[in-house]
């Protein structure tokens, strides 16, 4: 039981982690809590849905429930959602920054933007649910007492690959280094000649792309609907803050911890309280370490 709960927690956590990376960058590099981030997950999932509607999910490859078309759809969704995030910044947040608005004004603007984005989805695709594929897989026993779906193992592997690639990008590329510099100290980065607008643009695009990947994974298990991102919003924030804003390993570990808290707690407490678990964990961590597990002290 416990082993299975941990496996499920890791899987939920992987998807949360992908979404939380964007939130974490937002908190540290863009310096505000982007409550519209969850809608980028939804948009990513719906863009992939449009591609799948044209190309079909493809014939299942090996044990997976989908073919290469699904991967292509995810890539298209990542690019377009990245652009969407950037457009959102240009339309709303950049203007607010240039006006010298209070950082928390950006948070409210994000609240408003989230509402608009969510209901535009309802307007275009309707309030109902959609599916990428109608295949149903049966779980295989990967370890004694632990069952997982082939799709889930694939999602885990791909998440790992994305995180490693992102880590390399942040460590070795010019833009990645500039992003880290911004995260540590925007003022210093500016003085050192970092192109602030450029870094901001890349942060939005990357966050959007990662959100689209997370959204597509979320849609694979098993459906796409307008509230899918919103229902994950609090988990994303809990994960990002838990790990420490601006830290890539922090966001990943935060995501995993939140996933585990949701899944393991059900064994011990009434599942009716599952939704509160990420927060209780978050409060406990913040009480001991106000900057999060991997965060730098302000």
């Amino acid at each position: 039981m416990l082993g299975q709960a941990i496996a499920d927690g890791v899987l939920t956590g992987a998807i949360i982690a992908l979404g939380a990376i964007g939130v974490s960058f937002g908190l540290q590099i863009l310096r505000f809590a982007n409550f519209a981030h969850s809608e980028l997950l939804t948009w990513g999932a719906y863009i992939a849905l449009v591609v799948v509607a044209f190309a079909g999910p493809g014939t299942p490859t090996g044990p997976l429930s989908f073919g290469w078309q699904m991967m292509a759809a995810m890539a298209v969704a990542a690019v377009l959602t990245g652009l969407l995030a950037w457009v959102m910044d240009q339309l709303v947040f950049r203007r607010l920054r240039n006006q010298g608005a209070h950082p928390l004004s950006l948070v409210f603007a994000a609240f408003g933007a989230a509402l608009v984005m969510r209901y535009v989805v309802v307007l275009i695709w309707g309030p109902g649910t959609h599916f990428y594929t109608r295949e149903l897989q049966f779980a295989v026993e990967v370890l004694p007492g632990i069952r997982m779906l082939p799709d889930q193992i694939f999602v885990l592997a791909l998440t790992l690959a994305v995180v490693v690639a992102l880590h390399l990008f942040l460590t070795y590329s010019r833009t990645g280094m500039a992003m880290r510099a911004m995260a540590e100290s925007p003022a210093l980065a500016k003085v050192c000649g970092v192109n602030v607008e450029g870094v901001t643009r890349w942060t939005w695009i990357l966050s959007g792309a990662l959100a689209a990947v997370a959204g597509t994974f979320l849609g694979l298990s098993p459906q796409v609907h307008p509230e899918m991102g919103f229902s994950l919003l609090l988990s994303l924030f809990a994960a990002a803050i838990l790990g420490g804003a601006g830290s890539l390993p922090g966001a990943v570990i935060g995501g995993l911890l939140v996933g585990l808290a949701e899944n393991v707690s059900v064994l011990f407490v009434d599942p009716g309280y599952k939704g509160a678990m990420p927060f209780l964990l978050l409060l406990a961590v913040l009480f001991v370490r106000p900057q999060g597990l991997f965060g730098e002290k302000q």
Partner: protein
Amino acid sequence: MIGLVSYLVFFLCIVLILGVITLGLNLQWGSTGLFNAGIVGFYAIGAYTHAIVTAAPKAGMIANMGLPWIAGVVAAMAATALVAWIVGLATIRLRGDYLAVATFGIATTIQLLTHNLEPLTGGSHGFSGIPRPLFDVLGSPFAFNLFYLGLLACVVALVYWALERMVRSPWGRVLRAIREDETAAVALGKSATRFRLEAFVVGSTLMGLAGALYVSFIGFVSPFDFVPILTFQIWAMVIIGGSGNNRGALLGALVVWTIWAATGIAVTKFVPVAYAAQGGAVQVILIGLLLVLALLFRPRGLIGEAAQVSRHAEKG
């Protein structure tokens, strides 16, 4: 015509109840800069405390007390203050947006508690049979609503007067000083944490008061009353009305709630039933856009903070 008047009386009652919450939030956000995203949690504590204290005992409900209305109001404020104090102790030191997420989480937890503690709250069936003051004496619903509007007007006037005195007092000036420049305020020997905590507790207590006023007006409460969108609506009211200004907070409650209700009526009137779902979506999109546009083009709200309060600050 009497129908329209009757509807408006009812409508204004809701606006005034929301106004008590916006006044509370304005003290926290407008005067102190605290980002409380858990408004519905404190509102829920006040609402359920009042319900439990005033409802007559009945089978299946373990804690109903059947005490008078005023006891319910006092208990609701006391319970909310206590919870806010505990929450504040744990979270008040957090940076702005972390406080937002933490309070949001607390509100979610409180809502789950109201949902799951069935013997105490009635769970998802809701809590019915909450007495309304003088409802039977007054006879007609219109007379009751009119009476309640008067009562609410008195409460709001009292709260407004008290808040105005508070923000103009030395205590209020310290709050603003902390909001504008915490380091300087601390250097002057003021404990920022203590003042913040006090503002947080007082503001939350008002939200609890609003909860009590709401349930004793409607007579029924359930966990669905405390969905996160209400927090969003209250924030929109304070931002659009003008944060840092108590009259702005009240005006925001009136304006935003009018827009919310009027767009609903407009959708009914002008959108065919077949497209009502799309009409509803457009309604929400408009509200979201309004908030974004207000922030972009009128960041100080309809009526911003009076300039003399921080006359040395940059004029905006």
